[in-house]
């Protein structure tokens, strides 16, 4: 075909034509947000994550307000992978849900991008005082409050009691006696060696780290390990600058690097954890310890391993005990036509009465300090350690408007480290990538 020249020139001509066409009224700005007040709607639409305990709990917590006001809450779900992206797209959507579940650490970014309605009007000062300290920092921007948490989370080390009894190990239940990471590692190496010998195969591991989708634990669990390497309020402990825009000098301190090395050794040198991304091994009795949060542990084990005897011991640490918490928050998209009603619903769902329903149905820790004492289920053997951890050791995850960019790059960095990458090269590249991404938020910082 001697037509390549003709074709190429046509492509150029076509492209210029396209350029002319596109440069015209190409980019129309999204319509500005409409005022929030309106006539009373019959229903409010909600966008939740596909996590059944949360959905059931939310429906239950919304019943009383719904009955009193004659408004029904209809909940639709968004797939996990689309969650952040969908929320970020709210300002450009013609129709948005009236209420949405948003991820705690991402709240600041959403507020900074003007996606959510400030909810100060709907909460009294005593409410704000009552919320647990781990849950409010990321929801505050320039003094405004953008959404209460549905519950507080926690993290601790669940363990297979039958297995540990077999080897005569009794983990501590008091926070003051919590194991350090080196202690835990020794115990795991020992158990793993003996159990593998007993089974005659290598299908047994010391621990499973995190909820499962991130090798290396991600920014929720993996970062705990790194931050605890620092003394309280040191740069390592803080993990990010106070303005939330820089990680250089915080994520790559000498202590942090030691933490990364320890993480890598867990996976590679000592082979104490599988790379498969599923806690099914724990349910099968193939794992001794599972570092995770209470809802996943309690509901997961109840459903998939109901006969297993298990216990909970505090989250291990290096220098300073630290556990990152904060869970789902309720937010109201600014451009919802029923924003005012939605905000009222949100405030009611976390009221003392309904907040207890919201948390107890998930077997999670309530957002309000006043409710923590009232909730008896928090004192059962499995929840006790989680609850104390949330009151004493809890800190929010790094507070930055660029949370999703930070999370993506940092979690991938931990995964690369955990699977054997060169630590100093990987960390320095990730740190410069993160800072480059966060620099784009310069103008939006609080």
């Amino acid at each position, binding site marked *: 075909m001697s037509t390549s020249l003709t074709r190429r020139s046509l492509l150029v001509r076509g492209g210029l034509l396209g350029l002319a066409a596109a440069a015209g009224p190409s980019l129309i700005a999204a319509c500005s947000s409409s005022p929030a007040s309106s006539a009373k709607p019959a229903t409010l639409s909600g966008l939740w994550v596909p996590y059944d305990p949360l959905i059931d709990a939310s429906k239950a917590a919304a019943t009383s307000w719904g009955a009193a006001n004659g408004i029904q809450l209809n909940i639709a779900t968004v797939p996990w992978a689309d969650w952040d992206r969908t929320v970020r797209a709210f300002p450009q959507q013609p129709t948005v849900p009236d209420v949405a579940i948003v991820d705690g650490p991402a709240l600041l970014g959403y507020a900074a991008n003007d996606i959510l309605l400030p909810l100060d009007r709907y909460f009294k000062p005593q409410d704000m005082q009552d919320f647990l300290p781990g849950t409010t920092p990321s929801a505050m921007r320039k003094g405004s409050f953008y959404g209460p948490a549905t519950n507080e989370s926690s993290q601790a080390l669940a363990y297979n009691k039958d297995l540990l009894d077999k080897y005569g190990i009794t983990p501590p239940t008091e926070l003051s006696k919590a194991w350090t990471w080196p202690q835990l590692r020794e115990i795991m190496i020992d158990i793993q060696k003996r159990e593998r010998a007993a089974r005659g195969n290598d299908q047994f591991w010391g621990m499973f780290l995190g909820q499962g989708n991130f090798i290396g634990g991600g920014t929720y669990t993996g970062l705990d390990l790194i931050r605890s390497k620092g003394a309280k309020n040191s740069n390592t402990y803080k993990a990010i600058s106070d303005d939330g825009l820089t990680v250089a000098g915080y994520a790559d301190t000498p202590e942090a690097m030691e933490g990364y090395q320890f993480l890598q050794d867990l996976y590679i040198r000592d082979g104490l954890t599988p790379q498969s991304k599923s806690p099914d091994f724990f349910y099968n009795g193939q794992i001794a310890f599972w570092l995770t949060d209470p809802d996943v542990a309690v509901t997961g084990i109840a459903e998939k391993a109901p006969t297993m005897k298990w216990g909970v011991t505090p989250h291990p640490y290096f220098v300073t005990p630290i556990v990152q918490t904060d869970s789902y928050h309720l937010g109201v998209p600014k451009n919802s036509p029923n924003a005012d009603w939605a905000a009222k619903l949100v405030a009611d769902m976390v009221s003392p009465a309904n907040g207890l329903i919201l948390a107890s149905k998930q077997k999670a820790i309530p957002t309000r300090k006043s409710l923590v004492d009232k909730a008896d289920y928090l004192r059962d053997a499995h929840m006790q350690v989680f609850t104390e951890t949330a009151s004493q050791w809890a800190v929010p995850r790094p507070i930055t408007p*660029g949370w999703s960019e930070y999370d993506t790059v940092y979690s991938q960095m931990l995964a690369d480290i955990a699977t054997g990458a060169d630590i100093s090269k990987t960390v320095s590249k990730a740190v410069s990538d993160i800072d480059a991404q966060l620099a784009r938020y310069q103008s939006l910082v609080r």
Partner: protein
Amino acid sequence: MTTTATRRRRIRSPLDSYRNAVFLLAPTVALIFLYKYVPIGQAIWASLNAFSVAGNPLAFVGLDNFVHVLTDVSFLHSLMLTVIFAAVKIPLQLALGLGAALLLYQSSAFNSFLRVVIVIPAITPIAIIGIIFLFLFDREVGLTNAFLTAFGVGRVSWLTTPATAQAVVAVASIWRDAGFTMLIYLAGLTAIPTQVREAARIDGANGWQSTRRIILPMLQRSTQLATVTTTIAAFQFFAPIFVLTRGGPQDATDVAAYHIYEQAFVFYDQGTANAMSVILVSLIVVITTVELYVLRSRWEY
């Protein structure tokens, strides 16, 4: 006679009607213009602007994005990965497709069955191929490692070691697309006239020689088509990487398509993403044009 001729001249053939052509082509041309050419213009426009994290255009920055992108090590790395991936995929896939076509050309029930078997992966939705390979190469529960441990080799971290992750992704891609290539070559083989094959056989050339010297050159057009389609497939390879490695480990599978996706839809940086798109598309046009020229058929038969 004259009457018929006159009648013919007087009837306006619908086949010469400009108006008919316009009606028939209008929707197609409009759609292609709107969804293929306008985006090219859009890409060029967007690549000349900076965008905010919310996805809105901020300011005209001229060629800044291009400068930034062309000096960005990770983008250059992803371009290089893509080119290497194509350079590996094309010959292997063509060889596999041609081999399968030659092997299964004979008519037999088994061959018919095998031809279908080879095409099944090619028509299976691609992300599902990704899931299958995710499972097959899982470190702890994957069958590959089960075999390796049984034979004493030990477990390999297929998807979390850079080199092996690249190998798995390449194998998944070639394994899957081999069916398409086989179909192209099968079609090409049937188009070879029987006389040629008979002539080759009479000459007494043994199977391999006749294949190499006579049949292969006659498959020039098939090779050209297969090369170009495989190149395009290589440059747009995305779904299995999304499912298996997300560009990792350590950016080992961060091919251009995935890199651009990440820039545009994970980091919300439309300006950079479009600059990368412009560069990538230009590269593809150049490469496919070169391929078409180099592989142009010298045989007319």
